[in-house]
């Protein structure tokens, strides 16, 4: 596994993999598990994936980002049971200038959410659980 991890995400090592003294601008996005969803208390989030396809699509997104911007991009997504505060996804983009770093990081996280086959089940304080369907996906289905 290159982009998916069942262990806690190591943002420091990820950043070291793309930082370089020739690239002065580094933008990092961290998506963490929130302790609520629209006010309803959340106790855990369980992520699952279609592993081989998720790895392939993450690789494609990284490659496409490198074509669109003069930036080096890294990406990790956590799988398994996470609790509020845990990091679920980290995207980092390093470039010579901040425009490219911001744009590449933003584009990659948007594409990850749109294209990578990962799902999550939200567990609430009252014992109930729901599969999460992002608003965009509800409209498309």
């Amino acid at each position, binding site marked *: 596994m290159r982009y998916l991890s069942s262990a806690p995400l190591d943002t420091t090592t990820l950043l070291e993999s793309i930082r370089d003294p020739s690239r002065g601008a580094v933008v990092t996005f961290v*998506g963490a598990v929130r302790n609520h969803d629209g006010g309803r208390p959340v106790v855990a989030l369980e*992520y*699952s*994936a*279609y592993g*081989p*396809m*998720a790895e*392939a*699509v993450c690789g494609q997104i990284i490659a496409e980002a490198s074509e669109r911007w003069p930036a080096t991009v890294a990406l990790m*997504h956590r799988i398994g049971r996470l609790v509020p505060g845990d990091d*679920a*996804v980290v995207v980092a983009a390093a470039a010579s200038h901040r425009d490219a770093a911001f744009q590449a990081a933003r584009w990659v*996280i948007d594409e*990850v*959410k*749109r*294209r*990578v*086959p*990962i*799902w*999550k*089940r939200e567990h609430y304080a009252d014992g109930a659980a729901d*599969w*999460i*369907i*992002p608003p965009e*996906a*509800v409209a*498309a*289905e």
Partner: protein
Amino acid sequence: MTSPQSGRISVLLFARYAELLGASSVSIELAPGATIADVVAGVRALPGGDQLPDRPLCARNLAMARLEEVVVPGDELALLPPMAGG
């Protein structure tokens, strides 16, 4: 399973779809020239399958595929609930 192996295809199921069918993979009879839509119809005919959408997201060989595409024996097919990563 009396039909030859090439006459059936496995379909991977994930997340809510796996829960609806009670399985992470199902085996579907594959007629010559069948499309992904035909395979989806086969999955929807299984117990619990009627709760799948008519036109779910489908992947073939790790890439998104259109329902009109013809299935080739050996293809890896998967029905994907709406992506929810991040």
